[in-house]
């Protein structure tokens, strides 16, 4: 599986160095984000920068792309020291970046987005030559084998298509250094392969690529060299083929994670949630499943398979066209999240920033929100003492790293934000807990902690439903997995018959018989 170009490492002589960052330090209002970090990237190399959240990867990349300015250190491009004080300067120097968060102008067309700020104009004028813009876009798309209509409105594209456009846009600057920060966060299987194809082509042109991702398998598939950062410090740089998964994790975390996935020793109890024939036109059809107390039931599938939509419907965020939901054997009508909460359900949403948290509020205000009535006298007057006690208990129990319960959630790291979402729901002591992508975008340390919490909850006899796109996570934690494809159940597997290949096949639409005795 090693796709390293043998040439790159061989050619890695000094005059092949595209980028050399040395002694880079940066603090934000007294907090050290980077301390004497170095990074050396050669021509035509894919260089992965790895580290947990908060390790300093993003800060380093933001310094390189001119968003932040370094406090100390030197940056040399092709052996010449440079000063990068704005994103524009970085672009002029041939450094472009694909950002983790997509920020397209939704009301403009695809072509307009790609050429934003560098529109081709008629000669001697400032009038945009739309025809040429369109042709250039088509040429770029052809070159990269992308099939998107250049005249489509950006806002009408799927997230995956938007990400492809962002990638094309970054490539279109003809940069010599291309930074990719989580470029595959919204794309799957085939598109990832396409992206890697593009990356290989760019490599062969001598472009240096700095690649940041949490997805280990991608790192090993595409990168030539790996630099590891931890807590703002440089740890090590090594050729990718000298590293394996465990060693890399150890370098990143600084300790060995002997067992990422805890053993779940829970007794499976009665069926607590039973969904029968749930359907919503255009999203999913005939979804039926049962979940037991003490069980961790996984939902696998590709992005857009309808898993999130099913869960949101069960929870009352969407209305179903047909189907019924039973809780502990009794049919219930759930029309609003409040109904679901009353039936002791919890939904840890897929996107914590969009649906899970009020980022502008304090940790405490977020934690107590779900069941604020419990902390109110006469149902209205808040009892801040009891609120504070509960918040502190939640912070302690899930080991949320926050200076104080009144710290604004926005300032926490991704992993800690996710723990706030979990703690917020656990404060309500739910019986049925739906977790939608509970570890997306958080570092390994925090992941391990969240797995542990999930295992503990199952052992306490809670019903856990976990939607995840990370197969490793499904295989490692679930007792049973249901696979969705295009809004339909395409497979179901018991832990005893888990088979990675079959799950992937089911997720790709090859119907596999439900092999569980449900």
């Amino acid at each position, binding site marked *: 599986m090693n796709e390293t170009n043998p040439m790159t490492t061989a050619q890695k002589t000094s005059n092949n160095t595209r980028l050399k960052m040395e002694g880079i330090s940066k603090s934000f209002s007294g907090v050290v984000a980077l301390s004497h970090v170095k990074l050396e990237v050669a021509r035509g190399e894919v260089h992965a920068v790895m580290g947990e959240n908060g390790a300093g990867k993003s800060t380093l990349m933001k310094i390189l792309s001119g968003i932040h300015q370094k406090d100390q250190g030197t940056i040399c491009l092709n052996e010449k020291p440079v000063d990068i004080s704005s994103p524009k300067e970085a672009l002029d120097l041939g450094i472009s970046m694909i950002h983790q968060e997509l920020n397209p102008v939704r009301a403009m067309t695809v072509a307009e987005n790609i050429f934003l700020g560098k529109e081709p104009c008629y000669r001697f004028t400032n009038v945009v030559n739309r025809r040429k813009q369109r042709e250039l876009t088509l040429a770029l798309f052809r070159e990269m084998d992308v099939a998107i209509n250049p005249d489509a409105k950006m806002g009408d594209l799927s997230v995956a298509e938007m990400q492809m456009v962002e990638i094309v846009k970054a490539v279109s600057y003809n940069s010599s250094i291309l930074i990719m920060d989580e470029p595959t966060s919204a794309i799957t299987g085939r598109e990832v392969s396409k992206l890697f194809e593009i990356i290989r082509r760019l490599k062969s042109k001598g472009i240096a690529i700095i690649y940041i991702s949490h997805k280990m398998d991608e790192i090993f598939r595409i990168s030539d060299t790996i630099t590891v950062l931890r807590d703002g410090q440089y740890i090590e740089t090594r050729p990718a083929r000298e590293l394996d998964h465990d060693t890399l994790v150890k370098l990143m975390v600084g300790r060995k994670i002997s067992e990422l996935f805890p053993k779940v020793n829970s007794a499976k109890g009665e069926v607590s949630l039973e969904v029968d024939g749930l359907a919503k036109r255009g999203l999913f059809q005939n979804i039926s499943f049962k979940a037991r107390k003490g069980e961790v039931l996984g939902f696998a599938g590709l992005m857009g398979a309808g898993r999130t939509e099913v869960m949101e419907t069960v929870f009352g965020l969407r209305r179903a066209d047909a189907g019924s939901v039973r809780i502990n054997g009794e049919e219930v009508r759930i029309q609003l999240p409040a109904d679901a*909460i009353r039936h002791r359900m919890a939904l840890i949403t897929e996107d914590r920033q969009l649906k899970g948290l009020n980022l*502008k*509020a304090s940790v405490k205000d977020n934690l107590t929100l779900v069941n604020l009535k419990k902390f109110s006298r006469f149902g209205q007057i808040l009892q801040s003492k009891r609120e504070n006690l509960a918040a502190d208990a939640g912070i302690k129990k899930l080991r949320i790293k926050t200076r104080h319960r009144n710290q604004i959630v926005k300032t926490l790291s991704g992993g800690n934000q996710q723990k706030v979402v979990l703690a917020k729901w656990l404060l309500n002591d739910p019986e049925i807990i739906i977790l939608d992508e509970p570890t997306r975008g958080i570092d390994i340390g925090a992941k391990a902690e969240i797995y542990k919490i999930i295992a503990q909850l199952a052992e306490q006899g809670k019903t856990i439903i976990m939607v995840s796109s990370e197969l490793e996570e499904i295989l490692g934690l679930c007792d049973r997995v249901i696979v969705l494809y295009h809004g339909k159940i395409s497979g179901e597997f018991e832990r005893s018959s888990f088979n990675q290949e079959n799950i992937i096949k089911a997720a790709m639409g090859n119907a596999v018989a439900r092999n569980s005795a449900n």
Partner: protein
Amino acid sequence: METGTIKWKTAGAFFSKYGIYFAFVLLTGTLVVVSPPFRTLSNVENILQQISVNGIMAVGMTLVIITAGIDLSVGSVLALSAVVATSFAHPDTYSLVVPVLLGLLVGLACGTVNGILIAKKRLAPFIVTLGMMTVARGLALVYTSGRPEIDLSDAYDEIGGGSIGHVPFPAIIFFVVVLLGIFILHFTRFGRYVYAVGGNELAAKVSGINTDRVLIGVYALTGALAGIAGIVLSSRIMSGPPATGAGYELDAIAAVVIGGTSLSGGVGSIAGTIVGVLIIGVMNNGLDLLNVSSYWQQIVKGLIIVFAVLLDKKAKQ
């Protein structure tokens, strides 16, 4: 050396955070020094009376803006409440309760309509309240045929003109409204939900909050407060002119924004709004006393609003 810079930084942060309070003290201090008429007791009474109407509306506006909304209709709703209330305030007709209650109900009704359209029909607050602004103004004109009621009972006149000792009634009403606002926003579940809806409406919904009810409540409350402001104002000027209160919504919004409440929602406080109200009131009064033309006053007011937001933005960085 090191601690020196840190202290300096902390002082800077402190100043940015409480800058608006310093600005108010500075403004008042300057006026106390340069303008003898400013520091008289009767002028203080005067200021209290002048700021009350804007203050009452700004309390409601604070809640609306924390939900990431806006209410452009309060000035017109004030006028509609004023004409309806005064029309029942002839001497020797109804008891004082009738005009007061009706004025309040008119405001409440307008606000509720705003809230329902915004929450249930998902229309933009700007559009809905812009519509209400025009409709309420029109209704006020239709109701009075353009002629204000000027013959009001003594009891009604007393609401805006009376006082306890040196404290005018409007100031007392403002004070009560402020206490009510602080209580609702900072000490009740509803108040917490106001922040939750403004900070992230979707997350609030997932958390089981009936966000529609929160939004309707906030706009209804703001309408009712505009109604109270209408009663206070018409009583103070001893008539109910349908054209009154035009542009008042902008003063209320200005006070809220000067007070550090974010137009993007989720952040803000009544305390800040009160300082905003005081700054606008003291400035208007002081510039009047210094014989600064009203043309210049507008320019100064505009600059202060922008400056206040700049300061606030800096504090948040």
